[in-house]
């Protein structure tokens, strides 16, 4: 049995909140640079340049990448051999508040969703999973609400065709259009139950993205992000179709409508096929630590 103090977790959560909000994910920055080089549309190129410049300014000046510092969402994979001293959820929420205050991050959370009182920083959304071992993995995803508002779930018939599924995903991207800060990262959850598909769609955003080229033979050699090659093929086809929609950065046209498509799957029931889509804006922020 390994002992850990909840106070230590509070400190780590605080650091992760600041890090996630100020330092853009390396893989996202790489994908933005890749998109910049590929983009032919001049206005799209100029906007991508501003997005890349923004990541530089935020890093150098310790400023939030986006003023919407999100609904802090904390994922914890806790090893079964760990015993935590103190109130874990309270420690996480205190850590979020500490990090957000110290990092000058925005207070965007209203405690009463109907009364809409003065916003604060907590509570966070906390997902806890028990795993094997004696380690604890903490991930903070401060996702903004401009793109969260575009989330969609559809309970398909189990006999639905791949084309129907693809069309629903494309429709979701089209509905978001210019409004939710394209180029997007498209998180998709396939299977499970209604609630679980939504969780999977968001978890798909946590996966590292690769710079898939739109067409064969362009760009560097691609390693599969998902070992399941059928899913990888679907991700690639969807990305290619999304990038033909001509939404582009800020929705002003261009070939860069999405940076990546990530899919997570789970077994499902014989009577259904839940599909959830969770879009992230280009500022996909996240920080992780294993203790």
């Amino acid at each position: 049995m390994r002992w850990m103090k909840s106070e230590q977790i509070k400190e780590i959560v605080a650091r992760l909140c600041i890090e996630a909000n100020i330092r853009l994910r390396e893989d996202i920055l790489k994908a933005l640079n890749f998109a910049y080089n590929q983009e032919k549309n001049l206005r799209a190129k100029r906007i991508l340049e501003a997005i890349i410049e923004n990541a530089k300014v935020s890093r150098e000046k310790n400023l939030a990448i986006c003023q919407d510092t999100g609904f802090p969402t904390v994922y914890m994979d806790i090893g079964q051999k760990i015993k935590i001293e103190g109130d874990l959820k309270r420690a996480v929420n205190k850590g979020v508040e500490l990090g957000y205050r110290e990092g000058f991050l925005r207070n965007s959370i209203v405690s009463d969703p109907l009364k809409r009182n003065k916003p604060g920083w907590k509570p966070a959304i906390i997902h806890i999973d028990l795993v094997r071992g004696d380690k604890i993995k903490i991930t903070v995803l401060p996702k903004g609400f401009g793109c969260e508002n575009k989330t969609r779930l559809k309970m398909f018939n189990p006999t639905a065709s791949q084309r129907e599924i693809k069309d629903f995903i494309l429709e979701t991207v089209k509905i978001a259009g210019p409004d939710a800060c394209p180029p997007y990262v498209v998180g998709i959850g396939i299977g499970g139950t209604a609630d679980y598909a939504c969780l999977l769609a968001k978890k798909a955003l946590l996966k590292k993205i690769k710079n898939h080229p739109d067409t064969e033979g362009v760009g560097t050699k691609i390693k599969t992000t998902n070992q399941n090659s059928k899913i990888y093929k679907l991700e690639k086809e969807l990305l290619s179709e999304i990038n033909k929609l001509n939404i582009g950065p800020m929705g002003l046209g261009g070939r860069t409508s999405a940076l990546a498509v990530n899919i997570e799957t789970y077994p499902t029931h014989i009577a259904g096929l839940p599909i959830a889509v969770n879009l992230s804006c280009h500022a996909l922020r996240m920080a992780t630590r294993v203790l």
Partner: protein
Amino acid sequence: MKKIKTPLDGKQITKLKAGNTVLLTGIIYTARDQAHKRLVRAINQKKKLPLDLKGQVFYYCGPTITPKGEPIGSCGPTTSSRMDIFSPAILRIGLKAMIGKGRRSEEVIEACKRYEAVYFLTYAGCAALLSQYVMAKRLIAYGDLGPEAIYELKVRDFPLIVGIDSHGKDIYERRCR
């Protein structure tokens, strides 16, 4: 590249065309969901407003907490379409421009035409970069709303793209509708 200064008048506005890039210098006011709701309620009840909107510019923005020693924190645009139901009433009493991101409704396009107003886009998701164009920030009204309060921002060469012009032309027309 066009340069404009606030307060704006009809003459300046009518020269702007959808797609133009513009640098704005002067005063803009942050206002988003809850501030819009309160302003429109006050207009409907014929109550005095906390600021004179004639010739002014609204920026759909809720900045982060201001870091020590800085004029402002990160301050990018929020999704404009949530303000669509309030904008025509506010344009009617003299607001001349709105800054945000994304599409607007037909009613807003119509109101831009009728009241000689304009809707600007600015770099979406580039809040740290945009903070570099803001010189000063001052609370004007609704302080209890925190980041959703109305703040006066003094800006220099704030980068904009005309989204909807006063002739009713929309940059997103045909592209995404």
